[in-house]
């Protein structure tokens, strides 16, 4: 028997093996779940000096995986490409401070939210914007009139100011929609970068989640940073932070939802949230 003939079945075997390998994982049940995070959004998820990952979502992911009885592999993915790479099957879930929005719901699926929390503006204490009016909490869904009044009150003060925001976020959507004609928006790859530019004086203010501001203000060089105006939520800012999943993985979504419900019920989320944010960010309901 010639060598070249032996190639036939060998090649066919390889093709079969390849076909088996690319079968949807769901068909075999979930043993390993790959979770993507950004690794640059303290205290949600961030990288330590030695490169290891830490943060609220890292702790929570490990807890949820134990509840789901699966092995978890946490990978780091740039924020801007985090949804396309999920769709391309590079990993199975996203836990990266991602809010549920209608726009995202069109392309991916979400578990129930595991955290909520307000968004808003922050400036340096010596900025003319330090006295920007507004306080408490405002919902874009239920208080649209109050929000419109607030924007009208802000407009003369914010006219022409430069505001930094992380690109491709609900925060950027809010700025574009509500303040796009009033301020100059600069989009950054990470929140750490706009923090640096705020302290360098290139920006008059930044718009982000209050939880991220709290983490930044822990650093001595940002002790002078100040949150101004009310905490905003709902509407374009999303319906809470949840696990993002591919639309066809209903089974995995239900597993995450069940695990999050359990973690809420036994106080794990409250405990982790207080550890990392200094406040209880457990979503309502």
């Amino acid at each position, binding site marked *: 028997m010639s060598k070249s003939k032996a190639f036939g079945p060998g090649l066919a075997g390889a093709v079969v093996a390849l076909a088996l390998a690319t079968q949807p994982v769901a068909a075999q049940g979930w043993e390993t779940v790959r979770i993507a995070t950004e690794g640059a959004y303290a205290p949600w998820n961030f990288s330590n000096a030695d490169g290891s990952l830490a943060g609220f979502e890292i702790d929570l992911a490990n807890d949820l995986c134990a509840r789901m009885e699966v092995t978890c592999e946490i990978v780091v993915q740039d924020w801007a490409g985090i949804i*396309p790479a999920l769709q391309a099957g590079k990993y199975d879930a996203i836990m990266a401070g991602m809010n549920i929005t209608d726009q995202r719901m069109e392309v991916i699926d979400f578990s129930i939210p595991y955290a909520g929390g307000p968004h808003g503006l922050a400036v340096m204490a010596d900025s003319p914007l330090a006295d920007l009016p507004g306080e408490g909490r405002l919902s874009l869904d239920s208080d649209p009139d109050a929000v419109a009044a607030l924007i009208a009150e802000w407009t003369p003060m914010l006219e022409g100011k430069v505001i930094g925001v992380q690109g*491709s976020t609900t925060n950027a959507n809010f700025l574009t929609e509500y303040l796009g004609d009033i301020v100059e928006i600069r*989009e950054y790859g990470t929140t750490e970068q706009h923090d640096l530019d705020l302290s*360098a004086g*290139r920006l008059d203010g930044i718009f982000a989640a209050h939880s991220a501001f709290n983490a930044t203000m822990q650093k001595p060089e940002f002790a002078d940073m100040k949150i101004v105006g009310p905490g905003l939520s709902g509407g374009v800012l999303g319906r809470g932070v949840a696990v993002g999943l591919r639309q066809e993985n209903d089974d995995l979504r239900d597993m995450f939802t069940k695990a999050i419900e359990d973690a809420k019920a036994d106080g794990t989320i409250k405990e982790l949230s207080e550890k990392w944010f200094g406040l209880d960010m457990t979503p309502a309901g």
Partner: protein
Amino acid sequence: MDLAFMGRTFLTLIEGVPLLLELAGLSLSIGAVFALLLATMRLSGVGVLDWTAQSYIFVFRGTPLLVQIFLIYYGLGQFRPALQEVGLWWFFREPFYCAVFALTLNTAAYAAEIFRGGLLSVPHGQIEAAKACGMSRLQRFRRITLPIAVRQALPAYGNEIILMVKATSLASVITLMEVTGLAHRLIAQSFRAVEVFVVAGAIYLFINFAVTRAILVIEWRLSPHLRQAPEGEAPMKPAPAHARGA
């Protein structure tokens, strides 16, 4: 592939082209002047000048442009009080100036070596012939050395121009919304990475197509002596067009 979506994508991304051309054009022109200076330093035969230029080229060719952009923008941003003191903050405050600055320093290092190679490639005999004709140093440089050096350096420098057009895509990391920056934003809104990047790639391809054609035209004009003489003309021309100062 959704053609209507790609059409809308094209219209959005094309808005980043003016910024792209400004970044590439400004940094290439300032960088070329700087590079000529560096190449002259390298060939000056003065140890200190040669060594200074060599170290500069070593540092800027040896480190990634992305790192240089980050260092110039975020790194220098940490030294605002010092920069304000020396009156340079207005410059480093603006992301656009920082990007042009980084791109210029980078292209100058590469182009310096390309220009040096071009200058070294001028045949000694031609310079000697010019001397024999009684041309002054400046005349020799303008009529003989420069045109030949430019022609020799052009293919390599054409590469550098193309690389710079593509390097402008890094400016999006310091908030400048050129074609790549706009593409990232569009992907975040549409989640359709393939279509958006295909259109973005096509825009760069088109710009670089125009660049390569332009370089070909210049190369053709600078090498009349390498072409066959047109019918009816004397086979031996008195001197190449460029050597007559054309």
